[in-house]
């Protein structure tokens, strides 16, 4: 079957980008295969793991469920856009200090999701953190250290 290609203009991590998407590309596929940003990961490709989580126009989305063509004019932030140059965010540092990753495949999604939580709710309770992050699966950590990293980034004392 013939494939249409679509020109998409958007802003990714503060840079305006124009790319050619296959009409069947999801945003995740466009980011990874067309633009070369492989930080967002594919864990399930149907919205159930959060590994592909990116921020789109201020909202976190599973990029595997967004069509690339829908991104015309959008502002997108991926894990690659969190650190300011060589300055990690407090959350990224907290992930390192709390050992909140083992294999690290879920980490980009958790970071993007948790940054959005902290923007909306700078002092979340443990339950609020767990609730917000319930769309992100981690198979390695049992979540303890991820929750603690978010608490640390929120300036809370960690037990």
């Amino acid at each position, binding site marked *: 079957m013939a*494939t249409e290609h679509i020109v998409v203009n958007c802003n990714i991590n503060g840079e305006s980008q124009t790319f050619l998407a*296959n009409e*069947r590309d999801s945003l995740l596929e466009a980011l*990874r*295969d067309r633009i*070369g*940003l*492989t*930080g*967002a*990961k*594919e*864990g*399930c*490709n*149907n919205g*159930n*793991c959060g*590994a592909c989580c990116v921020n789109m126009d201020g909202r976190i989305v599973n990029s595997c469920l967004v069509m690339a063509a829908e991104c015309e004019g959008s502002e997108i932030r*991926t*894990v*690659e856009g969190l*650190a300011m140059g*060589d300055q*990690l965010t407090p959350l*990224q*540092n907290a*992930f*390192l*200090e*709390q*050992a909140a*990753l*083992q*294999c*690290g*495949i*879920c*980490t*980009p999604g958790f*970071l993007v999701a948790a940054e959005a939580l902290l923007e909306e709710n700078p002092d979340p309770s*443990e339950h609020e*953190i*767990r*609730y917000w*992050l*319930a*769309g*992100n*699966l*981690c*198979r*390695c*950590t*049992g*979540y*303890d*250290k*991820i*929750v603690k990293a978010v608490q640390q980034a929120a300036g809370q004392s960690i037990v």
Partner: protein
Amino acid sequence: MVTAQSQPQSRETEQYNVIGTRPIRHDGVDKVTGAAQYGADITLPGMLAGRVLRSPHAHARIVSIDTSKAEALAGVHAVVTNADFPRAADEEIDTGEGSANLRWVLDNVIASDKVLYKGHAVAAVAASDHHIAEDALDLIEVEYEVLAPVLDVRDAMVDGSPLLHDSLHTRELDGSNSDNASNTASHLQFTKGDTEAGFAEADVVIEREFETSMAHQGYIEPHNGTAYWRADGTLDIWTSTQGAFVVRDSVAPLLQLSPSQVKVTPMEIGGGFGGKIPVYLEPLAALLSQKSGRPVKLTMNREEVLLATGPTSGTYMRVRMGAKSDGTITAADVHLAFEAGAYPGSPVGAGAMCSLAPYDIPNQKIDGYDVVVNKPKTAAYRAPGAPQAEFATESVLNELAEQLGHDPLDMRLKNASVEGDTTAAGMPFGVIGNVECMTAAQESPHWQSELEGPNRGRGVAQGFWFNIGFESSAYAQVNGDGTVPLVLGSTDIGGTRASIAMQLAETLGISSDDVHPHVVDTNSVGYTQVTGGSRTTFAGGWAAYECAMDIRRQMEERAAQIWECDASDVTYGDDAVVRGPADEDGNDRQFSFKELAGQLATSGGHIVGRADVNKTSSGPAFATHIVDVEVDPDTGKVDILRYTAVQDAGTAIHPAYVEGQMQGGVAQGVGMALNEEYFYDDSGDLKNASLLDYRMPTALDLPMIEPIIVEVPNPGHPYGVRGVGEVPIIPPAPAVRAAIANAIGVHMTELPMSPRAILNATVLDDE
């Protein structure tokens, strides 16, 4: 450059400078910035994308495959089927989790005459992009003759049930093969004492039957494999694997290449838990690359991962155990029937060896059966076989304690294996932390606390895993500024760059930040076994220790050369100061590590330390877990209220990653206990092949998991390491079962103990 400095943190043991601290892992910054390159992240010039066509049937004969229409589709570069592979030799190869017949390895990679499970690979396509490759799959015509599937281990063992393999005969206890073809690949047995005499001595005997469902490792990263078959006949493979050498040594014989023609580069890996030891995509990508002359990347989607990789065995188990009224266990009879999936090789042997190991029971008989069924070939999953087997034995032990009115930890302590005891499998115990874990659990705030409220209960269980050693390699050079790049062959799946580098740093007396660990390809380091078996920090750390000792010796020699004295008069101290005899004027002579490093280039050349170890010993691991649950009697849903995991780590090299292994193991164990199951219909169709329906624990399903690290150093390791990854998945299921029984008085007999199962049990109970 992005940098993250390790915070100096207080040491948790006085004995060591580096071991027991919590430095930031060396690969950490890459992994929080999205820079780390996992298997699917690779792009090569001219690379094609591939997809795999999979069987829609659980059991069928392949009558014909016609790939011509797919090959004709614009953008398709190559299509392969089993017929494109060289005929596999009838030989056993090392698969990293035991051995397997090469023919079966090939048939599992891509079906030959029959498909044996839904999702079994039938053909593979390489195209200019994955959308086209997917379209091409629809154009491949496969004619099947559908056969009756056999889906349950007990059905499969019955004479006259449909056979998966006409050539499979049961390997009996005496080593002979059964006359008739069978789905039972082998029967194994371990015995000790006289069980019937033991049961005669018992005041109470309990017998229970259990069924457990297949469960998947559930790593978040799907399988991938990229290959480039060069014109000179050499093959490059990039993949997410737990063992690059195992991939090399599986792919080379499948393609009839020399291992020297195959180079495997392990990419960062997004979890494995045993499931990323076997090869699935790599041989297909290789052949597609050979046919197309281009690099080919294959990736699985989640449905394929669930249908066609992993999982761990479903089982039928029966345990009979007897004890005297004082709590002494007199006899145990364990029957384990494990589903291997489509080809022989379930972990029933390991399950059998572990099943009663925590206890010194004088009379034991343990039977294990390895049985093929029309489901995916099982792969290792964290302490393979032990979570099922110990679920059965620990559960019956808990019921014995309950019936006899003993505290379950007291009863375990009364029967606990200690140094000098030998298991039924003939494994003698050296210094172990079995009792220490039980005692630490008894003393824990959790065990000491009261649990109140309706439908709430507490349970406890023990776990045992033997851990393994085997081959690891480490090379390290000393740079002029005193930093040390360390080259390793072990895939870093959860912080082992750090745990191995820390042992090198400890031995050299330098900071762990001055060691720069790198995981390299199979041509760039000595043979290294898989990251699995809880062996990597143990054997990799041992290699690092010996590598560092090699550097120390060479640096002593170099200092002696510079000082023009005898090398035997020079000592490399644990403080990383190299001291020699006083000079002619009586002044002390010494070099710091950095000073001497700075002089290497001009005093005779650089120094490389190296070590290749092969350790057949290991340090067994024990764990004791305590859990509080609340059961919703209306829905059957079980909530975990509180969880404490006690474990003997031997020595905790990086305690944060030890805790992480414990917590992650608990989460997987709780998933296995409560939710995770392979749900097949009668035709062998897996009905829950998505992460929505294959329900793994989320952050909201779990409380904080309190880790208590016990350290009974393993005398068989330079730093007392035992290995920590596997044992924590074992106790959760029996502990949760005991807690449910304590909460609502129902003793479950299946895994998972899902809301459906609990309602079934409670409704049946009421009738």
